[in-house]
């Protein structure tokens, strides 16, 4: 079973781990990190398929995903800071109020 195929499976595993993390952890920062993990899994899948098809487009998509991830982190952490400023907490369940 060649490398790329293993990579696809690995990406599946990582994605699942990220999903579980995002589902069960309450620390917003960790949740964000789990989402990053999921994105990374996706990147891995992209790269693996680009290897399988010997086509570079997949890697372009990885770059796009990375950009999106960077943006997401910037905004997400901005929100975290704002939240912490108001709630003194980064527990996602303290942010369950739908209005301020």
């Amino acid at each position, binding site marked *: 079973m060649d*490398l*790329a195929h*293993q*990579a696809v*499976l*690995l990406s*599946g*595993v*990582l994605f*699942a*781990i*990220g*999903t*579980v*993390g995002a*589902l*069960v*952890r*309450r*620390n917003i*920062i*960790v949740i*964000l*990190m*789990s989402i*990053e*993990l999921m994105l*990374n899994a996706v*990147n*891995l899948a992209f*790269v*693996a398929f680009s*290897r*399988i*098809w*010997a086509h*570079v*487009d997949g*890697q*372009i998509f990885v*770059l*796009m995903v*990375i*950009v*999106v*991830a*960077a*943006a*997401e982190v*910037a*905004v997400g*952490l*901005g*929100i*975290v*800071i*704002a939240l912490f*400023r108001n709630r003194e907490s*980064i527990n996602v*369940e303290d942010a369950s109020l739908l209005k301020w």
Partner: protein
Amino acid sequence: MIQVLFSLFALLAVIGALAMVLNVRNTIAAALSLVVTMISLGGIFVLLEAHLVAVIQIMVYAGAIVVVFLFVVMLLNLRRDVFGPSGQRLTKALGAVAGVWLVYRLLVLLEGRLPATQPLPDGFGGYRDVGMALFTDFLLPFEVTSLLLLAAIVGAIVLAKRRLD
């Protein structure tokens, strides 16, 4: 040789990911284990002939994104991650089940359905190759993502700034 390296990196990646998710005491440690995952993924990318992407992966994810995470954790001075996983047993259990099931389905799905790997053109995945594609076929997405970044920067500033005046 390559197979060995791959297995090693894969192992590291999974371990790092698990450590990140399961570490309920120390956010910094979680972030650092995420870094492990990132770097080993970078290694895997190299093994998959995606050199540029590998470097970018390490530079951006390991070098910037996770550092920002650490930065925020330190800024908020969260000594200890005082709360464990979600108190809602249901969510937790379902989440775990969902994850396992997802993996299982994926394995079933992929098992023997992936096409054979094509032979590579030389220079594949190098910065020339990728750059050429990025700035010709994908120019518009590229520009659009730049806009996205700009928006994100502004948003982050607006959110994190104490007073807007």
